[in-house]
Structures are given as structure tokens and as C-alpha cells.
């Protein structure tokens, strides 16, 4: 049913995404951690493409790999006297145990549940359908999202303003 290319793409992108996320944990330099985070974002965008979500993949590149990464880098650069060592708190061991428990539980549930999968259509473009849905069925959440963005922008400006 599926060609070899998409299977290879899935495995390569999964390894890149999870490996970069592990490097975010492992590296000792905060700047390097941000760079690996960007790599992980790009890997997730590739996984979106293998799921035929072209519009969401482009949005992921623009917002996450572009805007949010630049925001995080700015926050690191603008705190010059803060520690850059990416170290852990005393919660390292409990955090590890809890994260492992959550991962194993979610993974086990994902494996044993019968998800009643529908037949998959061919790869198709989604941007036009998403645009119609945003302005028709989801127009109220769309407007609320714009108000949230405005409130966040005003709040961020008020918070960091020198006075």
C-alpha cells in the first residue's frame, strides 16, 4: 500500500526528532540545546508532511522553527549573567521516573487500544479546506484566537517595558 520512500522518511524523521529531543536533555550548553530543539521542530514538520498535512507543516516551520526559536534564543541572549549550563534541579530523579511512567502508560494505551482506523485517502492538499473551515465552521474560535494574540502581545509589551 505504501511505497518504500514514505516508510524510510518516517523512520529517518522519527530518529532525527527523538534524537534531537534527547540531545536537548543531554547537552551541557543552553544555546546548543536551543539549536537541537530547532532540529526537533523541523523533524516534526517532516513527520507532518508524511501525514499529508502540508499546511500544518509549513506553519510548523514558520512559527516554531522560525518565531518561537528566535524568541527563545533572544531570551537566552538577553539574560547574559544567568547560568548557561542547562543543569538539572533536585527533581532530576523524580522527573525521570514520572516521565518514564507517563511515556510507558501512553505508549501501552496507544498499542492496545483498537483505534477503529478509517480508510486513508491519497495525499491531498489541505490549505484550501483549512481556510474554508476557519472562516465557516470555526469562525468563532478563529476570532477568539486573534483576541488572545492581541492580549498576549499587549501583556508582553507591558511586562518588559522600562518605566
Amino acid at each position, binding site marked *: *500500500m*505504501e511505497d518504500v520512500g514514505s516508510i524510510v522518511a*518516517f523512520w529517518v524523521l522519527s530518529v532525527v*526528532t*527523538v534524537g534531537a*529531543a*534527547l540531545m*536537548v*536533555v543531554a547537552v551541557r550548553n543552553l544555546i546548543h*540545546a536551543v539549536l537541537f*530543539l530547532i532540529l*526537533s*521542530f523541523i523533524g*516534526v514538520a517532516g*513527520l*507532518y508532511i508524511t*501525514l499529508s*498535512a502540508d*499546511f*500544518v507543516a509549513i506553519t510548523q516551520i514558520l*512559527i*516554531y522553527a522560525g*518565531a*518561537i526559536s528566535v*524568541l*527563545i534564543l533572544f*531570551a537566552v541572549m538577553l*539574560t547574559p549573567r*544567568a*547560568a548557561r549550563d*542547562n*543543569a*538539572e*534541579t533536585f*527533581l532530576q530523579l523524580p*522527573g*525521570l521516573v514520572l*516521565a518514564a511512567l*507517563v*511515556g510507558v502508560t*501512553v*505508549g501501552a494505551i496507544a*498499542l492496545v487500544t483498537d483505534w*477503529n*482506523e*478509517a480508510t*486513508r485517502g491519497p495525499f491531498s492538499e*489541505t490549505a484550501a*479546506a*483549512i481556510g474554508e*473551515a476557519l472562516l465557516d465552521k470555526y469562525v468563532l474560535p478563529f476570532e477568539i*484566537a486573534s483576541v*488572545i*494574540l492581541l*492580549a498576549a*502581545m499587549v*501583556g*508582553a509589551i507591558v*511586562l*518588559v517595558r522600562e518605566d
Partner: protein
Amino acid sequence: MSVELSHYLMVGAILFSIGLYVALAKRNAVGILMGIELMFNAVNLTLIAFSRFVSPPTDVSGHVFVVFVITVAAAEAALALALAMVIYRNRETIDIDKINLMRW
């Protein structure tokens, strides 16, 4: 073998637990924010996977939901980093071990 829904769900679960660990255990406030963004990505990947494998092909509700999640994540990132900047300006650190204003 082919790539099925469970493969994507496993990737999402692994990514979520890595993000959870980063958000719980990192000492730098920006590092915690990075963990939260990783968790957002895991949930978005799961939503898109369900949209592809479970819902009918013409339904883009999962995609629309992911677009909203990305919007709220961007707003949250901007506000969280603004808070980190304010804390840094007042305390000269964003190490959460040293931010103990609410300790009794």
C-alpha cells in the same frame, strides 16, 4: 511492513515524556519553556496522526485544532519569555532554584 497509526503514537509518547522530563527537571526557566514546547509538538503530532488515520479524508478538523494549538503556544511562549525577562531584571537570575519569593 508499513507505517501505521501506532508508530506515530509511539513517537508522540516518547516526545511527550522527553518534554515532560525537561519541563520538570531543568533549572533554567528558558529550559523549562523548551520542554513545554516539546510537549506541544508531541500532542500536535498525535492530533495530526489521528486526523490522517481515524477521521475521514475530507475532514480537516484535526488540522484546524493544531493551528489553534500553535497559535496559543506562540502567545504562551511570548508571555513566558517576557516573565523570564522581568524576573531576570529584578533578580539577575532565571535559575528557578534561586527564585524563592513565595517561600514561607
